[in-house]
């Protein structure tokens, strides 16, 4: 192949941009959905109701012990069977990542909830608050704040993991680079380019998270 040819980057930019937008959208949806469902899972796991506890534990452990690629393939296979019509790879990816990340976020939120001292919840109950009010107004806000750096780190990992939608052919950043590389017959440049983009985004974010971590640590 000889020398690198970076002139192919410019015409492929709009295409890559579309891919990047999908990667970011997928990350943001899976993050919000994952944190909400994850928090519910964490509450279920900390509850004293046996079926809730067992169900949440089984779900989280199952998700955490299967490779993500297999989970992506499973959902892509099973969702059409359940709803009875084919779904696009993009929609399948969004559902998969939300469900998968919920398991990881739930472990973080569980640690967060446990980091709030017991007296806080007791004080809530003593004031006559219900379980829901205590959680919503007292425990969860603190748990969430304590865990912000960890939640963000998990989100960076999530952003990197979105590249695995390659397995079902959804057009994310990597897939766009892959296609552009084939179109212009310059796969080497395009793969390098996508690696640079991923690195720039993830490195910037993780540096930011490190700073945030220090600031929050000082606050407490």
């Amino acid at each position, binding site marked *: 192949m000889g020398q690198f040819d970076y002139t192919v980057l410019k015409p492929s930019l709009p295409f890559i941009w579309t891919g990047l937008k999908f990667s970011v959208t997928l990350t943001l949806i899976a993050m919000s959905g994952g944190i909400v469902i994850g928090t519910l899972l964490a509450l279920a796991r900390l509850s004293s109701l046996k079926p809730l506890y067992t169900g949440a534990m089984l779900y989280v452990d199952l998700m955490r012990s299967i490779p993500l690629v297999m989970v992506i393939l499973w959902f892509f296979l099973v969702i059409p069977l359940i709803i*009875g019509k084919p779904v696009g790879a993009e929609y399948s990816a969004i559902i998969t990542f939300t469900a998968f990340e919920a398991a990881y976020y739930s472990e973080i939120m569980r640690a967060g909830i446990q980091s709030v001292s017991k007296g806080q919840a007791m004080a809530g109950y003593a004031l006559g608050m219900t379980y829901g009010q205590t959680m919503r107004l007292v425990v969860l806000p603190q748990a969430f704040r304590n865990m912000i750096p960890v939640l963000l780190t998990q989100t960076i990992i999530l952003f990197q993991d979105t590249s695995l939608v390659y397995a079902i052919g959804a057009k994310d950043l990597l897939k766009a680079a892959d296609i552009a590389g084939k179109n212009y017959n310059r796969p080497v440049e395009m*793969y390098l380019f996508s690696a640079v983009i*991923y690195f720039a985004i993830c490195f910037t974010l993780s540096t930011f998270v490190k700073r945030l971590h220090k600031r929050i640590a000082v606050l407490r």
Partner: protein
Amino acid sequence: MGYHWHWGIYFDKIKGGEETYLSWLITGFGWTVAVSLCSWIIALVLGGLIGTVRTTPLRWAARLANAWVELFRNIPLLVQFFLWFFVVPELLPEKLSLWVKQEMPAKEFVTATVCLGLFTSARIAEQVRAGILSLPRGQRLAGLAMGLTLPQTYRHVLLPMACRIILPPLTSEFMNVFKNSSVAFAIGVLELTFQARQMQEDSEQGIETYLAVTVLYFICAFAANRVMSWIEKRTRVPGYITTAK
């Protein structure tokens, strides 16, 4: 749900061939284990080294090691697989490049092992560093005060304790290696995920296929977990690090 179940699929012959689907799964399992174990060895050696260097007073070496960790941690694993498979051979000197591309035996396997090994080494380096830094400062100082050189202090005082401390996170890292090896399907390693996709397309019995593959991944994770907890038990220092059990 219009799904046609066929649990005997594993013993059926593949389309236009003599092998059974079961033999595909077994091959896949073999490659998964091979890639995972080989990369694990690379990762342990390199990760241990790099993690240790990051805690030494050698400023330039520590910086280099930090850069290594940041590089491997901030690029998605799948992209790294593509970089090693398509990009790195282009960067080599011409003769070597040609050899890698055309003649290197088991090219996919070697590439996948190197890639996964280096990727995991960055994560292990992070654990090793955290383990060494978690030791009380007095241990290092005591070692030096007794007249041990810095390498001796590491060899006889710091590392033996640090290694034991990081065994639990290493356990989950060992399980991760098996999970991460699934990404190697993208460069054509014939491991479990590759076989899963191939068998699903060929037999159209997706659920049976994925179920078998998922169970095989479970077995890997479980075995990895057992081995590590056995090591943890064997190496425990009496009265020092106590575990729940």
